[in-house]
């Protein structure tokens, strides 16, 4: 029986590289899929070859895109996005982004590691970050508990480290962390240990405490 299994593995392994590279077609592809579903050894081999295939595509050459590429693309994107964008879609997007950030270690250390509760049907809250009455960025808060915040700042030509601090309704202040601002632009995300409804306001400051932007989240 082992000999039979060995022959099957040997036959499949001949095709694993082509499978991992996405160039194996039809019946051979099905045969590999069927086999790796029940053979941990060949599945492990396939996973290592698939990781290599992903690395190899990174070697692809770059080239200057044609003039107008960016504007044509953004026009198509915004045209499609306007039709698609609904509150529920945005909520799902935020949930995915939050998972992405957890997995990438983007969240701040020291915060709660408990799983988010099931999302409610509410859409993420979006508000403008302002400075002296001007809109200088956007601030989003997810509807999950714990809540996620994401902000983008685009103002002036300042570069340096900015600090984010949120004030809760009871007056408690949370220093959420720091992020880089380059020539006035910076974007950042983090998970909080509180529900969205607990947030009252947020501030972005430079290292000296000067307020670069703020947002009131009173509803």
């Amino acid at each position, binding site marked *: 029986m082992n000999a039979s299994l060995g022959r099957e593995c040997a036959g499949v392994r001949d095709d694993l590289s082509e499978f991992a590279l996405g160039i194996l077609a039809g019946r051979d592809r099905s045969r590999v899929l069927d086999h790796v579903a029940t053979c941990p050894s060949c599945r492990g081999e396939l996973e290592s070859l698939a990781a290599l295939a*992903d690395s*190899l595509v*990174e*070697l692809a050459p770059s080239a200057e895109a044609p003039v107008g590429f960016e504007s044509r693309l953004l026009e198509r994107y915004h045209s499609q996005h306007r039709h698609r964008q609904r509150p529920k879609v945005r909520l799902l997007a935020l949930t*995915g*982004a939050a998972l*992405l950030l957890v997995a990438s270690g983007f969240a701040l250390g020291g915060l709660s590691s408990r799983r988010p509760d099931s999302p409610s049907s509410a859409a993420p809250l979006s508000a403008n970050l302002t400075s002296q009455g001007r809109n200088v960025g956007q601030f989003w808060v997810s509807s999950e508990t714990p809540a996620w915040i994401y902000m983008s700042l685009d103002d002036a030509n300042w570069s340096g480290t900015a600090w984010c601090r949120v004030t809760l309704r009871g007056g408690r202040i949370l220093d959420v962390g720091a992020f880089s601002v380059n020539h006035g632009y910076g974007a*950042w995300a983090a998970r909080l240990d509180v529900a969205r409804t607990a947030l009252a306001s947020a501030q972005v400051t430079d290292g000296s405490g000067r307020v670069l932007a703020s947002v009131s989240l009173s509803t």
Partner: protein
Amino acid sequence: MSDEALLAGVALGDDDAVLKFVRRYQRRLFGLALGIVGDAGCAEDVAQEAFLRILRHASVYDVRRGPVSSWALTITRNLAIDALRLRRSVPTAPGDVVFANLTSRGTGPADIIESADPAAPVWSALARLPLDQRRCVVLAAIYGHTAVEISIMESIPLGTAKSRLRLGMARLRDTLVRESS
């Protein structure tokens, strides 16, 4: 800002993040598409479609499956290969300088040590493959050619094309594993 954070902004509908993502990746996605389909008009169609899919599905990107760049490039590669299959019935080997560079690029130790390119170890390992295996791996991994197509392009039996691919991939993987440990 990291690619992952940028993609989080895209998923949340931040237009600035979308613009930055497009600017960061347009040369790579267009370059890959052009390398595969060989025609600027078709390459733009492919790269645009790839961007639209990436932006639309930013929320489902799973960082555990690899870096954003690999995800974005693989989407582009697959779309380009689909487009190529529709247009060509006879495979032709890429004859451009890019292919020549991929298959003959030198990788002295100093180049690798000084390079900030995260793909430098892969370059180095690829450069140490025997040339016949290197050509097969590049034709398959980057240009998406099947073993049958490679056998025609390289004028070799199908079995030889398949074994060069298999040996080349195994050797590359083993080299990278050995050097990362």
